[in-house]
Each structure stands twice: as structure tokens, then as C-alpha cells.
């Protein structure tokens, strides 16, 4: 029983960063902009959060810094793909590379190494309940926003039929720009959850493709808030399970364990199976990836 409860707890904790990023992706993609750059946003968010928390000794300042960093990077991304009409996949990939380069460079300047920030003292870390509750409230809020408010209607039309939105007198560019900005802030919050709550520092590449897993969860969840949330829980569960299975002995050979590398593949394997098996059946916003 305890085993189950603790597995459930770690599933929730490990899902939180995915949920933040997936909800960011939800906003962006429902408004019609593909968001490959969630991964990069998570990196800069996680790093900025750790740096600010170390300097100001407050995880809340850390979260604020993550949001600001996320906004800055997503403003760059939004500028590239919306007014300058760059290809969204190419520009998103470039942003990911940029983040993967900027973070170690700044780290080198600040701390003299390109790997990790110094460790954040225990009492300055984010309590695990914060991100978990925050993520669930976020999902509920976004589901409501999209389904029941005028702004949500605009976002959905921007991704489905932007010309209809424009002909109804709403500025499509503005709707998309703000959605992409918000996406960056949310994904960066996911990164902050990683470095402030799930870990004790920002370490190099700690996002470990979670931005892409969030994207997979979004697609698996048919670009809808609650189903995407469920998909994030599935991936979080796979991750919790792989943590648990590490070092567990093989039942038929008690003195040997499964090599840890294989166990660590689990979340990615689940992602792969889910994407290969279900993507065909979900329907993307019609204008996703188009210029306006």
C-alpha cells in the first residue's frame, strides 16, 4: 500500500513539469503555432529559476525569473514565426539550440563551470505540493478559458480558421503572439519545477527531452487540456516507475539487475509507443503551422 502511495506521489511530482510545458504547448498550438521550442523554454526557465533563487534566497523570485526568461525566449520565437513568418519547426529547433548554448555559457560566466549551478539550500527549494497543485489549477483554468471565454474562442479560431477570426474583427496576430508568449512562460515554469522542486540545482540538460514529451502528451491528448493532463500523468508514471525499478533484482536471477540504461528508456519508450500508436487518430487544429 505504502509502495502504491509513494508511486502515486512521485507520479504527480514528476508529471508537474510536463503538465506546465504541455499546457504552454496547448495555448500555442491551439492558436495555430507549432511549439517545438518547449524544450528550450524549459531549459532557460530551469536555469534562470536556480540562479535567481541562489541570489535572492527565495523560490518565488526564482519562479518569477523563470517566467521572465521564458517570456524573453518566447518573444524571440514569436517574433521569428509570426511577423517574420519563419518556418515554425525550423525556428523552434533553432531556439532549442540557442537555449542549449546560452545556458552553459551564462553558467560558465557566473559559476565557472558549464555543468551545474551550485546546490540550492533545502529551505530555499520549492515544496513539491506547490507545483503539483499549481499544475492542476492551471489545467482547470485553461480548460475553462478555452471552452467558455471569448479569449478562448479567439484562440481556438486562430488555430482552426484564422481568416474567420480576422473577418470577425479580431486581430489574429495579437492572439497568436500572446498565446506563444504565455506558452514560453508556462514551459519555463515547468523548467523551474525541475530545478527548484524535483532537484537541488540546475544541472546540464536536466530537461532531458521533457519538452518533447510534453508535446507528445499534447498530441496524445488531442490538443485538449484534460486529456493532455492525463497523458502527462501517464508519462510521469513511466518515469516514476523507472526510478523505482532501478537496482531491482531480476526475479529469476536474484544477484543480477536490469542494466539501468534500459530502465531509463522506459518513459521515452512509452512516448514512442503512444505517438506511433495514437497520433493518427487525433486531429490537429486545422491551421496549425500556417502563416497568417
Amino acid at each position, binding site marked *: 500500500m505504502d509502495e502504491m502511495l509513494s508511486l502515486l506521489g512521485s507520479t504527480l511530482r514528476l508529471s508537474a513539469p510536463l503538465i506546465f510545458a504541455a499546457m504552454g504547448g496547448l495555448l500555442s498550438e491551439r492558436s495555430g503555432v507549432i511549439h517545438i521550442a518547449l524544450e528550450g523554454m524549459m531549459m532557460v526557465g530551469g536555469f534562470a529559476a536556480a540562479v535567481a533563487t541562489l541570489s535572492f534566497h527565495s523560490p518565488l523570485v526564482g519562479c518569477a525569473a523563470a517566467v521572465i526568461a521564458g517570456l524573453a525566449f518566447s518573444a524571440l520565437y514569436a517574433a521569428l514565426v509570426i511577423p517574420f513568418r519563419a518556418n515554425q519547426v525550423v525556428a523552434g529547433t533553432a531556439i532549442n539550440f540557442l537555449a542549449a548554448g546560452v545556458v552553459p555559457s551564462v553558467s560558465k560566466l557566473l559559476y565557472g563551470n558549464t555543468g551545474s549551478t551550485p546546490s540550492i539550500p533545502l529551505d530555499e527549494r520549492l515544496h513539491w505540493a506547490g507545483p503539483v497543485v499549481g499544475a492542476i489549477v492551471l489545467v482547470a483554468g485553461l480548460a*475553462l478559458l478555452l471552452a*467558455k*471565454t*471569448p*479569449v478562448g*474562442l*479567439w484562440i*481556438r*479560431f486562430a488555430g*482552426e*480558421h484564422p*481568416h*474567420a*477570426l*480576422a*473577418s*470577425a*474583427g*479580431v486581430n489574429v496576430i495579437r492572439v497568436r503572439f500572446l498565446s506563444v508568449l504565455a506558452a514560453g512562460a508556462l514551459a519555463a515554469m515547468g523548467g523551474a519545477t525541475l530545478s527548484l522542486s524535483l532537484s537541488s540545482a540546475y544541472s546540464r540538460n536536466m530537461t532531458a527531452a521533457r519538452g518533447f514529451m510534453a508535446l507528445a502528451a499534447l498530441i496524445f491528448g488531442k490538443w485538449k487540456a484534460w486529456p493532455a493532463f492525463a497523458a502527462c500523468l501517464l508519462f510521469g508514471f513511466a518515469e516514476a516507475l523507472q526510478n523505482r525499478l532501478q537496482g531491482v533484482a531480476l526475479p529469476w536471477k536474484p544477484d543480477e539487475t536490469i542494466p539501468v540504461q534500459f530502465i531509463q528508456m522506459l518513459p521515452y519508450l512509452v512516448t514512442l509507443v503512444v505517438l506511433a500508436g495514437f497520433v493518427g487518430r487525433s*486531429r490537429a487544429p*486545422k491551421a496549425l503551422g500556417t502563416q497568417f
Partner: protein
Amino acid sequence: MNVVSSLAIELRNISKSFGSGESRVFANTDVNLSVRRGSIHAIVGENGAGKSTAMKILFGMQSADSGEVHVFGKSVRWRNPTEAMASGIGMVHQHFMLAGPHTVLENIVLGCENSSAFGILDTKKAASRLRELCERYSMPVDPDRAIEDLPVGVQQRVEILKLLYRDSQVFILDEPTAVLTPQEIEALFSNLRRLRDEGRTILIITHKLKEVLALSDEVTVLRQGKTVGSIQTKQASAELLAEWMVGRKVILDVKSEAESNPGVVRMKVTDLVLDSNHAMLKNVSLEVRAGEIVGVAGVEGNGQSELLRALLDPKNPLSLNSGKVELLGHDVSSWSSSQIRRLQVGFMPEDRHRDGMLLDESVELNILLGLQNHPAFVSEIPGVGGVIRKSALKQALERAWVDYDLRPRQSGIPGRSLSGGNQQKLVIAREFEHHPEFLVATHPTRGVDVGAIEWIHRKLFKARDQGTGILLVSSELDEILSLSDRIIVMFQGAVVAEFSRGNVSAQQLGLAMSGGLKGGHA
């Protein structure tokens, strides 16, 4: 009533050009238009005559280089459609501005939402307002249905309700009948008349002269970006309007002198079945004989495209699940499209721009398109492959200039620089290049000017009289009725009716097209 306020819309000397230098195109040159309040005013003209540009200027989607727009007597200069809408102008676009997965209500309130507490959409109030409008104008529609589940005619009703919801006073409709059945067209027209009788003003852009005569109070004709003239509809005739549109006398209804004389079977399909996501063919069987034109009528999206794909690419599992396709006596069910192209068959594709031409390539290469295995144009060099014979292409192009009246007579220019009618002539010239014994003509006159329609229809009749079997697919009922020796009707992937020449009216066809007629008669 004073003169100024009796006009709803007035365009004075509107000019608009695109591009600059040599590539400058004048879309509108001194266009003038006066629309009386409470009237239905038709704007007709060929493709590229400047109708759409003028309406976009009126609706604030584009701004004029010079000239004035007056709305209800006031001079206006919109910067965007929002300003135009705020002044009571609404537009129903040719391609509907509706998002398929969203509900009718969401599509209608978009941009003028009412919120209740906490910024939540007040759907109750909006729905009751919509129901009221539906009832008042007898245009029933369920607010909670998704747009994609509604037939096209109802979707258009939603577009009109959208404008009524905003209480627009001026309705601009761009080619509103293009996708409707005759019954839906009649319903639309009676709704429009009712709106006019209420004092609203209707502007309808169209190229169908019959509809202009049936519906409008006044007509304005544009040609090459200029106003040719305006006339009271009751004083106008189709011949006069066509002459204004084209600039010369036009024969509108080409009739064949000879009776059809069907010979051997050129195309035969048996029990074609396709069942994929949206595409459907339900046991379609059909044959076309030498020397006859078989017309396929149907609202677009009822299996016509799928039928054509099965004919051109039967081997592809995406085009056909089962069934037998025979062309010119061969069983081609397992042939690829390149094998089929080697037979004496011609295809005029559905979407000329997407499938019929390479717009950025030269006219010569467009003549070659699809004939790249034809020995007349390509010499095989063993071990190397084919080499294009440019001189042969040039000759074919020169033949097209003379035999098909293709203009301009200039080699090397990109396909894009030809007018719609001339692009279609090029496609026809190419497909007739190897004297097809079977020809598929899909929307042969779509986007083609009135003058060229006459020419294309004559060409099809001539081919028929020389023994070509022709399968004609068209959404223009008049075209189907005047060209076809036999007519089949497709509805939801099945052949639901068949008629022979002269035994059917547009109304009967329309009924069959909307699924209201089962069986039919030979």
C-alpha cells in the same frame, strides 16, 4: 426622399493597382457603382474583371489608391473590416469563414461576444437571440451543432445569420450559389428577397447570368477593371450582359448539331468501393461509350473526386478498395497512373492549378506535363533515359496557338501569366495532343471567361462527334444539362440516378443531388 440617402453604397472612380513597374496590374480603374438602399444589386464580370477587388475595398480588406467610397451618404475610408462591419456592412465570402469543429453558436458570436460574470461567455443569451433570428427569418439551424456536420446550404445560412446577428444593413455575397443545389439556391434567393423587402441592401457578386436575371433589381457589369455599365435587370437580357462582360457577341448555349451515336465501350467501372475517413465510393458502376458525353452531376464532395482518382490511379490502395476499372478494353484495375497515361486517354483535372499545370514553369513544359513518356516529345537513349525534344514541344505549342487559339502567342512564358481561360485551353490542347479515345473533363469551364466557355463546349462536342468517349464532371448544372447525352447523379459516394438527354429538368437533378430521389429513370 432625398437623393443622397437613397443610396446605400456608392463607389466613385475607385482605382487600385498591384505591383509596380512592368508587372503592375490594374485591378480597378475608375470603377463606379451606385447601389440603392433596399435593393438587390448584382455585380457581374469575368474572372479578373475586378469584382472581388472592388468588394474588398468596400469591405475594408484593401484600400483604394484613389477614389471615394460612400456609405449611406457619408464618405468613408476603412482601414480594416472591423470598421466596415461597425458601419453595418457584412460579407459572406465565397469560401465560408466558418471553423468546422466549432458550433454554430460559437461561429456566429465570434468577435461580438457577450460575457456574463467572470468573463464567461453568455451562451444562453446568445442562443436565445439566435433562435429568435432563426424563427423570424425562417432559417432554422441548431445552435449547438458543429459546422462540419451541416450541409453546405445550411453552412451558408449560418453565414447569413452571422450578419443578421450583427444587424448588418448591407450584405455582400461573393459567388453564393457556387456550391448549392437548385433547391438551396431557390431558398437562398427567397431569403435574400425577404431581407431586401425589410429594407436591407444586397450586393451579389456572380458570373451566372441566369441567376442575375432571376434575383436582382439592378446589374452593374465590370470588364478589365472598369465599369461597363449599370442597367435595371428588367431591361437586361443574358445576351446583353454577356456582351458587356466579354466585349463582343457571345453564343451562350452551344448546342450540338449531331445526335450522339454511341459506339464501343471506352470506359467501364464495376462495383467501385472505397471506404476511408471521409472519401466514399459505394458500389459505383458506370460506362462511357465512344461518341457520347456522360455527365456526372452532384454537389461537390459526393464521390466525384474519388471516382476520378479511381480512374487515374486504380492501383493505389488509397483510391480504391475493390472494383474493376476498364479503359479502352484493358482491365487497368492494377495499373499505375503512369501506365494509364500511356493509353490514349486524356484527363482535364479538377483543380487546374494544383494538378493540371506547373504555374511557374514555361508553357512548353506545361505542354509536356503528363506526356513525359510520349515518344513524340521524349527520345529514349538506351541506358541513359529520356531526353526532352525541345523542338517537338515548340511545335506542339505553335499548334496550340493556331488550333486552340491559345494566347498570348509567346514561347517561354510561365504558365501563371496565362489567363484562366488560356490555361484551360493549354490543358485541353495537351490532353488532345494524342487524340484521346476516352477523355475525362472535370469542371472544364471553371474559372474560364464566358467567351472561352463557348469555345471549350464546341471542342468537347467536336471530340464526341469524332468518336471520343467523354466523362464530364461539373458543378455547373447548366453545363451538365447542355452537354451530356446521359447524366448520372452522385450522392454520398453512390450513383443515385441516371437520366438521358432531354428527359430531366434542373429541378429533378437538384432533387437527386440532395438525395431526395432514389432510383431515377433511364
